[in-house]
C-alpha cells in the first residue's frame, strides 16, 4: 500500500518509532522552510547542508553494509572516504602533483578502483580470521593511509592539500555551464529580506542532485540486496557464522563482498565531498569521520538502511547546528559541544532503545516471492515488527 493511495491507512500501519521519526522530520522540515523563507538560512548554504547530509548518509550506508548487514567491524571509514576524496581530487585538480586535469568521471572510476584494491588488501588476510582481526587491522590501516597522505608530498601535496578541483560536471554538455547560464533570481517572500539565487545557488543545486543520485542509487541497491537471499546469508553470518558455514555458505566470500561493497560506497562519499568542497586536505582523513559514521549507524539502527539515512542526517544536524548555535545564540566552542551532544544522544539511545531508532523491522524475504504466495498478512502482536514483504526495508 502506498502512502499516496491511503495516507491514513499507511500512517496507521507505521510502528511507533516510525511515526515519531516521521513527525520529527516533518517538524524539522517546516523549521528549515521557515528559516529559508525568513532569510535566516541562506538557500545556498542550505543546499550545502543537504549535500553534506547526503554525504554522511552515504558513509552510513557503506558502514551499514559492513557492520549492519554482516557484523564486520571497520574502523577505517575515514580511510576509504579519504581514498575516494583524494583519488578523484588527484585525477581532476589543476594543482594535482600527479596526473590531474582528467574528467571527473575518470576520477570517480580511479577512486573506486583504488578503494577496491585497498579493501582486498585488508580483507584477504583478515576476513578468514575472527571478527576482531579486521577491527584491529582497519584501525591501523586508517592511520597508515592518513600518514601516507600527509607525508608523501610527491603524490598528495602533503599538508597543503589539493586545490583547484573542478565541479563534478566539468566537461559535461549543458551541465558544466548550467550555473552560469541560469539567470540570477531575486525572491521576496517577506518584504525587506529578499532571497537571492545566483550562480553559486545553481552550482549547489547541481551538487545536491548529484548526491541525491549517488545516495538514491545506493539506497536502491542496498535495499534490494538486503531483502535478497544474499542479504540473508550476510545476516546469518552476523548472527552465527558457523551456522552459515554448516549450511554450505562460503562465508569468506560473502564477507569479502560485503566489505568491498561498503568500502566502495564510502569512497563514493569521498568523491562527492571532493567536488562539493573543491579542496581536500589530510585533515579530511581524521578519525572523526569514522566516529560519525559509527554513531549514525548505531543511532539509526544497525542493519537498517533508512536508519543509516536518518543517522546521517542527525549527524549533520548536530555538526552544523552547533556551529549555528555558536554563531547566533551561545558563544560555546562548537567542537566540544558537538561531542557532548553526540555523547548524550548515544547514551540516551543505548539506554532506551539499544537496537537504534529505526532498526530493520520487517521480515526480509524477496518481496515478490511473498506476494506471489499470497501469504496472509495478519501478524498478531508478537510479530508486529516482523511482518512480511514489501515493507520499507
Amino acid at each position: 500500500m502506498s502512502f499516496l493511495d491511503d495516507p491514513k491507512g499507511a500512517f496507521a500501519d507505521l510502528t511507533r518509532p516510525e511515526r515519531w521519526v516521521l513527525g520529527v522530520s516533518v517538524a524539522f522540515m517546516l523549521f528549515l522552510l521557515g528559516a529559508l523563507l525568513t532569510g535566516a538560512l541562506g538557500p545556498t548554504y542550505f543546499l550545502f547542508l543537504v549535500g553534506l547530509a547526503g554525504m554522511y548518509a552515504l558513509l552510513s550506508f557503506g558502514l551499514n553494509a559492513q557492520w549492519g548487514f554482516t557484523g564486520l567491524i571497520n574502523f577505517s571509514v575515514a580511510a576509504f572516504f579519504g581514498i575516494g576524496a583524494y583519488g578523484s581530487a588527484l585525477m581532476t585538480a589543476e594543482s594535482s602533483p600527479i596526473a590531474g586535469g582528467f574528467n571527473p568521471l575518470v576520477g570517480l572510476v580511479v577512486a573506486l578502483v583504488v578503494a577496491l584494491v585497498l579493501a582486498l588488501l585488508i580483507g584477504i588476510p583478515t576476513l578468514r580470521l575472527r571478527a576482531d582481526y579486521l577491527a584491529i587491522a582497519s584501525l591501523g590501516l586508517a592511520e597508515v593511509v592518513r600518514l601516507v597522505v600527509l607525508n608523501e608530498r610527491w603524490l598528495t601535496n602533503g599538508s597543503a592539500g589539493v586545490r583547484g578541483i573542478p565541479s563534478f560536471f566539468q566537461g559535461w554538455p549543458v551541465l558544466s555551464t548550467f550555473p552560469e547560464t541560469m539567470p540570477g533570481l531575486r525572491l521576496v517572500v517577506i518584504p525587506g529580506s529578499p532571497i537571492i539565487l545566483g550562480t553559486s545557488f545553481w552550482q549547489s543545486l547541481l551538487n545536491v542532485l548529484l548526491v541525491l543520485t549517488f545516495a538514491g542509487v545506493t539506497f536502491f541497491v542496498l535495499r534490494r540486496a538486503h531483502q535478497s537471499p544474499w542479504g540473508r546469508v550476510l545476516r546469518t553470518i552476523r548472527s552465527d557464522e558457523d551456522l552459515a558455514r554448516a549450511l554450505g555458505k562460503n562465508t569468506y566470500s560473502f564477507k569479502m563482498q560485503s566489505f568491498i561493497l561498503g568500502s566502495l560506497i564510502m569512497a563514493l562519499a569521498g568523491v562527492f565531498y571532493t567536488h562539493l568542497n573543491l579542496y581536500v586536505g589530510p585533515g579530511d582523513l581524521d578519525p572523526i569521520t569514522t566516529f560519525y559514521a559509527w554513531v549514525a549507524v548505531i543511532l539509526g539502527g544497525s542493519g537498517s538502511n533508512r536508519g543509516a539515512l536518518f543517522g546521517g542526517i542527525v549527524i549533520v544536524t548536530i555538526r552544523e547546528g552547533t556551529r549555528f548555535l555558536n554563531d547566533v545564540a551561545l558563544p560555546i566552542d562548537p567542537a566540544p559541544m558537538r561531542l557532548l551532544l553526540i555523547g548524550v544522544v548515544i547514551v540516551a539511545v543505548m539506554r532506551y532503545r539499544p537496537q537504534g531508532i529505526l532498526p530493520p523491522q520487517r521480515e526480509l524475504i524477496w518481496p515478490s516471492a511473498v506476494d506471489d504466495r499470497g501469504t496472509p498478512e495478519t501478524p498478531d502482536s508478537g510479530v508486529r515488527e516482523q511482518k512480511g514483504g514489501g515493507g520499507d526495508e
Partner: protein
Amino acid sequence: MSEGALPKEDAVLRVDDLQKSFGGLAATDHATFAVERGTITGLIGPNGAGKSTLFNLISGFYEPDGGTVEVNGTDVTGMEPYEVAEHGLIRTFQTPRKLEGMTVREAMLVGPRNQPGESFIKLFATPGSVSESESANLADAERILEDFEIDHLATQPATDISGGQMKLVELARAMLAEPEVLLLDEPVAGVNPTLAKKLKEQIRRLNEQGTTFLLIEHDMEFVMDLADPIVVLDQGHVLTEGTPEGVRNDDRVIDAYLGGGT
C-alpha cells in the same frame, strides 16, 4: 579389533584413522568407521568421548592431525565446511543456533543451497530467476514446516520459540539443504518428551524418504529405538559397532559408561 567391523558396501561417509589432539589430549584417537547409505547410524559414548569433535572434523570445522574423511567417495579431508556441504554432508550443532532478527520461515530460507539470489550480480541481472527460486524455496519451507506440524510458527521471531521447537526448526532447515547425509548432534537434548517423539518420527520419515542420518544422542532409549547400527566411541576411538541389542549387552560399552571415560 572390532573397529568398522560391519561390511559397508555403499558408504556415504567413511572416516579412516582420524586423529585430533588439543594440547596433550587426544580428543580423536585413530577413529575409523563408515556410514552406510540409507541407514540411521547412532554415535554414542560417554561425555567427553569426542563425539562432537568427530563431527567437527568430518564437517570441516576442525583440521584433522591425521587420517581421512570421505563423503560419497570423495576425499574431503581439509576442505572448508561449505565444500563438504557441497558434497552432500550437512551438520547441526549441539547447542541450538538462534538467528536474531529473523522470523522462523526466514531462518528456514537460509537452508537451501546454491540459491540464485545468493549471487549479488544476479539480484540485478536476472531478478526474475531470483523471484522464481525464492517463491519455490518459500513454498518448500512452508511445506516442511507443515510436515513438522510447526507451520503456525512461520512468522514468529526465530528467537521467541522454545528450545525444542528450535531443534525441530534446525532439522527442518537442514533438510532444505537437501543433504545426502545429515549429522545431528544431540537432537533431543533438552527437548520435552512430546517434541522428542515428534522429532523421532520426523527423522524416521525423512530416512524412509532417502536421507542418511548419523546422530549423536545421550538419550539411550531414543537412540536405541531409532538407530541401527550404533557406533560406540570412547576416549576418541571406536570401541565397537553393532546393533542396539549387541551394543546394549556389550560389557566393554557398559565399562566405558561406568568408567566415565577415565
